[in-house]
């Protein structure tokens, strides 16, 4: 009885306060009809044929902000992401001694068949999200998170030995993750080194030519829009995020008896 009363009072509170807020909003307009000047600059320059010196050559403003306008920010956020994963690995050190599977493992044949069909679809959609990140909503982070669902489903439906017998182990995932990070680093300094070799000013994480630094990475490759560095960043981030999440998922499903034998 008390629970229902508390729930009802919360709902009533929300509805009445929002009525009050909407009456006030009648006079001061939230949200406004105009966006902030900074956002206006982003929208105006994200794909602009006229103003060649400021554009990011990507129709997707969010990806342009993530990897071009605020690229350094994203690099450090990637660092935070990997610190969390390195923390998990450090906590689970010495736990990666797997025993062999004993007999039939996993869920029923219906679940296994459905997983066999859906897992390639999930990976396909994830790759599409990641590689079209500069054209449609999506990018490396989103594609990698989507693709990380596939190993999770395989582990739950088939058991983790299905993955380990096919060579998908913690070490392989660490290698893929490090290669992804390395590629992010190389793409970030490409424009800078082009500038060094051609004696023109350029900066780290530069994508398209700016007024003071006229180095520009190709926006079109074979007639296809790749928006300079954005496509490569998305590809690298896709592999890195996928591998990072797979490591933590593999850690979480270590069987209890493996831990107990480790303690003894």
């Amino acid at each position: 009885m008390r629970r229902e009363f508390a729930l009802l009072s919360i709902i009533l509170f929300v509805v009445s306060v929002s009525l009050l807020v909407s009456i006030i909003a009648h006079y001061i307009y939230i949200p406004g009809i105009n966006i902030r000047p900074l956002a206006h600059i982003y929208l105006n320059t994200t794909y602009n044929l006229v103003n060649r010196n400021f554009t990011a050559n990507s129709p997707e403003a969010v990806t342009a902000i993530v990897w071009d306008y605020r690229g350094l920010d994203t690099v450090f956020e990637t660092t935070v992401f990997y610190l969390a994963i390195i923390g998990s690995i450090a906590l689970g050190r010495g736990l990666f001694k797997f025993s062999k599977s004993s007999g039939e493992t996993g869920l029923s044949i219906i679940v296994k068949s459905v997983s066999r069909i859906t897992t390639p679809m999930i990976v396909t959609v994830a790759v599409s999200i990641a590689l079209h990140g500069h054209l449609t909503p999506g990018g490396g982070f989103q594609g990698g998170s989507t693709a990380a669902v596939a190993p999770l489903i395989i582990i739950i439906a088939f058991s983790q030995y299905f993955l380990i017998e096919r060579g998908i182990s913690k070490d392989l995932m660490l290698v893929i993750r490090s290669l992804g990070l390395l590629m992010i680093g190389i793409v970030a300094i490409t424009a800078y080194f082009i500038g060094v070799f051609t004696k023109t000013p350029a900066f780290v994480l530069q994508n398209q030519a700016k007024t003071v630094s006229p180095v520009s990475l190709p926006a079109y490759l074979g007639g296809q829009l790749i928006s300079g560095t954005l496509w490569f960043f998305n590809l690298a981030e896709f592999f890195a995020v996928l591998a990072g999440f797979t490591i933590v998922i593999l850690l979480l499903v270590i069987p209890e008896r493996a831990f107990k034998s480790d303690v003894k």
Partner: protein
Amino acid sequence: MINPVTYFLSLILTALIVNLGLSLYGVFFRPSLIKKIIALTIFSDTANTFAILIGFRRWVDNQPSIPPVIVGDYTSEIIQKEFIKRSVDPLPQALVLTAIVIGLAVTLFLVFLTLQIYRTYGTLDIREIRRLRG
């Protein structure tokens, strides 16, 4: 006199504020570590929704706002003008996108930490863990 769109927006806003309070209550006063983590994820999702709501834009000429992506022929001048006129703020979305993925990684780390605490102490009650002293 009250615009329905404004009313629903303020309903979302007030519900978010109440949700923020409830999740903070969960983080501070629930003794179970798993329930603390659940409340923490609700808290971070609420904060992310707040950030998205800040970037929202009122409808222009009774036409709904569009996401910050140029759909169709992006080289066309007319489509670009329409895009700048009606698109929402892309910056909060860019911040939230990375925050969600990092939040997921941090949550997985916390879950694994909690699992290890359970394996070591045999309990998830924060009062019991404090009493055990190490």
